[in-house]
């Protein structure tokens, strides 16, 4: 009993910490993501996306995945990918990028809360995603 009670309290405290991050984050994202600024952001990121072999059509699913995550953003990712008829090459490159680098804000924050180094996690994930996807884009040439 003298172990169980502190353990239970510890678990609840940890949950509270995580919840205090997640709820405002999800709410903020939901409010912001329809802003015209983000819809126009496609123009700015297009040159960067070309570097990893992606076109403008992949902007929405890619950034949804980067910020929202694969499971949460699944609806948007699948729908847009189908609507735009993204070719297999682009789907694969996008999947590779997202496999390495998705849901970054939430993932990084919850590990920072328990004592991790945020910039290190974010830096390595983003760097590796750009490197791998850029490399694959050059290996798998567009048809």
């Amino acid at each position: 009993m003298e172990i169980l009670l502190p353990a239970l309290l510890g678990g609840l405290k940890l949950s509270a910490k995580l919840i205090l991050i997640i709820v405002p984050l999800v709410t903020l994202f939901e409010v912001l993501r329809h802003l015209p600024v983000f819809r126009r952001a496609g123009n700015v990121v297009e040159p960067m996306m070309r570097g990893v072999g992606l076109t403008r059509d992949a902007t929405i699913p890619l950034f949804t995945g980067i910020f929202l995550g694969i499971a949460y953003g699944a609806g948007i990712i699948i729908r847009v990918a189908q609507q735009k008829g993204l070719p297999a090459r682009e789907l694969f490159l996008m999947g590779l990028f997202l496999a390495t680098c998705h849901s970054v804000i939430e993932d990084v924050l919850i590990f920072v809360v328990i004592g991790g180094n945020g910039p290190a996690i974010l830096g390595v994930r983003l760097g590796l995603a750009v490197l791998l996807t850029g490399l694959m884009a050059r290996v798998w040439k567009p048809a």
Partner: protein
Amino acid sequence: MNEPETSVPAGESIPDIPTRIRTGLSAGFKTSLKIIKVSVPLYVAVTLLKETPFLNLLGKVFAPVMGIFGLPGEAAFAFVAAFLLNLYAAIAVIVPLHLTPFQVTQCGLMMGVAHNLVVEGGVLSTTGTRGGVLTLGRLVIACAAGLLLRGIWGLWETAASWAVTLPGLS
């Protein structure tokens, strides 16, 4: 985030701000319930297991593999939680283990790449035809990222310790 997507289809009208706040809060609330359901039992289980020889034994078995990434063997348990469930589950295992800042960062990086493989593998295979390949790829990428961070962190610490010994810098 692991909630199913509930947003409006593309082309439909944009919801007003109160609706968006409500959508966000309700999604956050659902996630919160899931966090509590997963994190509390796992945190308690690991805290109790620490009192038994089991966790120690498990740690010894996995020490050689985890050691490659600068992690203690017990961290293997957190990786299982991350691969099969999600990052909240993994965190609930990590915290009672009392890891160093580097080890927490390493877990955050490797698990950030490879987690929730069952559910997300399904999503990835619906977007592209190569979902299985990508899931396997995530495990490989996680290992690569882990080695990379270990190297970078080692260099950083070496540089930092040199900087301290330089006159006029400390």
